[in-house]
């Protein structure tokens, strides 16, 4: 819910399918959409996209003209919303510890069946347990 993931997820709220198990076996990859506890408010969960994994050098803010680069420390992730102009993400609270992750988003359960199907296929093609 909220405008931060706008092109992918609705502003008024979507029902999503999250996978809480694969985090025990594999580390999140770049491009995954994850559910994560907000570092600023312990009771609040946020939905963001993983942009940097540990030891990456990440562009701090793509929307600015001057590009600064930061290194992601061990055990942290650089998260970012898809809607960069209206998003509270790692630009405000820095790299996020992996211990705050609660799940990986598999699919959006919405009325548009094509979108649901597309996201599901993309997930299973990138899934570490897939057989193909």
């Amino acid at each position, binding site marked *: *819910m909220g405008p931060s993931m706008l092109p992918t997820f609705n502003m008024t709220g979507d029902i999503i399918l999250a996978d809480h198990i694969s985090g025990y076996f594999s580390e999140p990859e770049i491009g995954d959409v994850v*559910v994560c*506890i*907000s*570092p*600023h*408010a*312990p*009771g*609040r*969960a946020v*939905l963001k996209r993983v942009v940097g994994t540990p030891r990456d050098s990440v562009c701090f803010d793509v929307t600015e003209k001057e590009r600064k680069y930061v290194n992601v*420390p*061990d*055990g*942290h992730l650089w998260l970012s919303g898809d809607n960069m102009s209206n998003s509270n993400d790692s630009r405000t*609270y820095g790299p*996020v*510890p*992996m*211990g*705050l*992750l609660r799940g990986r988003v598999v699919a959006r359960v919405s009325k548009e069946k094509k979108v649901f199907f597309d996201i599901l296929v993309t997930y299973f093609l990138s899934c570490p347990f897939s057989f193909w």
Partner: protein
Amino acid sequence: MGIFGRLRASPYTIPTLKALSWVPVVLFVLENGVSPSKVEGRSMQPTLNPDSNQMKRDIVLLNKWSATSHSFQRGQVVVLTSPTNPKRQITKRIIALQGDTVKLRQGTEKVYVPKGHCWVEGDEGFHSNDSNLFGPVPISLISSIVTHVIWPPSRFGPVEVNGIESKRVTLGFIPPDSDDDYCW
């Protein structure tokens, strides 16, 4: 006689099934309520593991239920997921909460603890990887509160909550936001 008939005839079947039905209850309490745990390492000396002998480990009682409210006091001993390695659990003492300003253990530099974060340190300053190294940690990384020492029996008793280190910590306050308890 088939296997079910033999089971029904056995006098042990019913008591065994009754005992088995308690397994999920026990698992739930261990996972969400209270559970014993072993403490490794010497970062909490002299409160935990006072012997530097590697064979002797303290067993403590963790309270996971009261950690779910995310409200803690300064001086409590807590168990949290290490921010630098998500597979590791570390035991530290909360020094400062959100809004406070802490002076680093070495040097005079002051650090502000932002909203939703806390400052954790080990009691043994020289052998502890704590907030002096990785900075303030998010409060939701804390999984449980260490309440009692169970083993060894000679030191059985509650873990004491230290007061505020007034020389290093300047208290602050951040008013709660209406957005804080918003879930998904």
